[in-house]
């Protein structure tokens, strides 16, 4: 059974201009040079290893941290490692305006919370979202709050299947319908 109320420090995947980086693809998240790795515990060290400005992420991330990403996060390949590398680091969730379809499924099926939130682009661009802020998100209700800035954070609630799989732990644990 998963925890549906998450509280953590955020990492905002923004560029030098402060805006969220859109279209971050799986080769930037987990480069194809490491595709042969099949042990989740070995994947964390390569998370964001090919994303300019974020290569030291595995050293900085702490268990419970939440990743804030841009639009179409996880574009590109179907590699599960691009999700598992964050699981390995103990990242507790990703929040982004949108994801690539395959990336989103991969995260849902492995029981890793991925949440959609339309207004993030603006919040980041307007300087209302910074790495290091503490946020709280309720996966059940879609309510979120930036505790550092004391501002609400609007999220989309999870779909039925997503909630069922999260509750079960993973697709493997889902009762066969």
């Amino acid at each position, binding site marked *: 059974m998963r925890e549906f109320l998450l509280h953590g420090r955020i990492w905002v995947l923004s560029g030098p201009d402060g805006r969220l980086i*859109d279209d971050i693809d799986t080769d930037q998240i987990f480069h194809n040079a490491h595709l042969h790795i099949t042990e989740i515990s070995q994947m964390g060290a390569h998370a964001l290893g090919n994303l300019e400005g974020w290569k030291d992420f595995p050293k900085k991330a702490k268990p419970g941290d939440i990743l804030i990403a841009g639009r179409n996060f996880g574009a590109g*390949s179907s590699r599960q490692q691009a999700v598992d590398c964050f699981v390995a680091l103990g990242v507790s969730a990703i929040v982004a305006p949108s994801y690539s379809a*395959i990336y989103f499924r991969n995260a849902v099926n492995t029981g890793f919370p991925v949440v959609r939130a339309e207004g993030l682009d603006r919040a980041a661009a307007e300087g209302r979202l910074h790495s290091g802020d503490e946020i709280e998100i309720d996966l059940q209700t879609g309510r979120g709050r930036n505790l550092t800035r004391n501002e609400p954070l609007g999220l989309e609630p999870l779909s039925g299947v997503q909630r069922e799989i999260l509750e079960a732990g993973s697709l493997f644990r889902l009762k066969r319908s």
Partner: protein
Amino acid sequence: MAQTVIEKIIQSHSREEVAAGRIVWMDLDVRSARDFGGPNVVKNFEREYGPEPLADPAKTVFTFDLCAPACTLKYADNQQACRDFARARGLRVFDVDQGIGSHVLMEEGLARPGGTAVGTDSHMNILGAIGCFGQGMGDVDITYAFRTGRTWFEVPESVKVIVKGKPSPRATAKDLTLYLCKVLGTSKIALRSAEFYGPAVASLDLSGRITLCSMITEMAGIIGFIPEELRNPGPSAADFPLAGTPAVGADAGAAYAKTIEVDVDGLEPQMALPPSPNTVRPAAEADGIKIDSGFIGSCTNGRIEDMAAAAAVLGGRKIKPGVMLKVVPATRRVYDEMLQTGILKTLFESGAIVLNPGCGGCAEGHAGLTGKGEVEVSTGNRNFPGKQGKGPVYLASPATVAASCLAGEIIPAAEA
């Protein structure tokens, strides 16, 4: 209720009522895994299901195309782990000699019009070219599909893309595809199924349809279909036993999220500049950029038509000294056709390096990597930073890549 192409295909594989936005369970006709993803599937399966059976071994296959034959010990180990699992479970393996899995599934008739297929390949939606709902998935999804033969899917909305006008004779299917990557970007058909209509797409031969449908992933779409009749099958159609089967068409009155019109009248050769497949300009604007290497192949441009287009440009000429041209046919069947038609000899004599079938430049290791500062012009489908090594990659048609390799610099293909 009137249904779109994707709704009709999913409906024929589901007991639930299918409509865009609903999450339904659907049956999968084919579930496959590659040498990437495959070893993770084996590991997941053994951990989660142990000795439990696969839903149907006859519908479950491995295809090795990424590192073929294995160029690192890790890949060798991973491929062998899949082979061992396949032997123990009675599954077919299309091994390192066979080529790109998605193409092999079409050649073998496993992927069929109106069918469903999944695999650990984000370009599995290329099967839309023959009217099959293909979908790339991660190893958790595929493990579950191996075991149960089913998966859940959120039925996507559909977008109607009407392609108007007549491209210039210099523009190929790849140029049309790159232009659509530019116009549709990563948002217009994102998370949706696209149905392409209009003479410029309906007249594409099967290899051209493959090229277009192979890059729907780069447009962030779920899949693309070309429902109009395949009037001009082309040589590759002979490789696909079911390609002549009528594709699924949408019902009259089906609901679309939107209709987008794209004018391609007079379209000239296009090129995707670094850093993304959506950064597309007329190839003429990149004219004169010095190149170090070229790549012809990939699931996007690895059919015999693509090889013939390159050979026609090369003629009897030699590529510019100092330029490497790497050529990788999509499948063993294409390789054989290159051999039979003399195309292989033409490419060889031009100075090209012709490798065995597989994913080629899109996969780390199979056809070499680009070093820092090495400029490559490629027929692949992705040029994200670091995708094919450290050098900048420009995406173009086989004809433009061949012409550029002769010149040693980017030059748009002339009229064929």
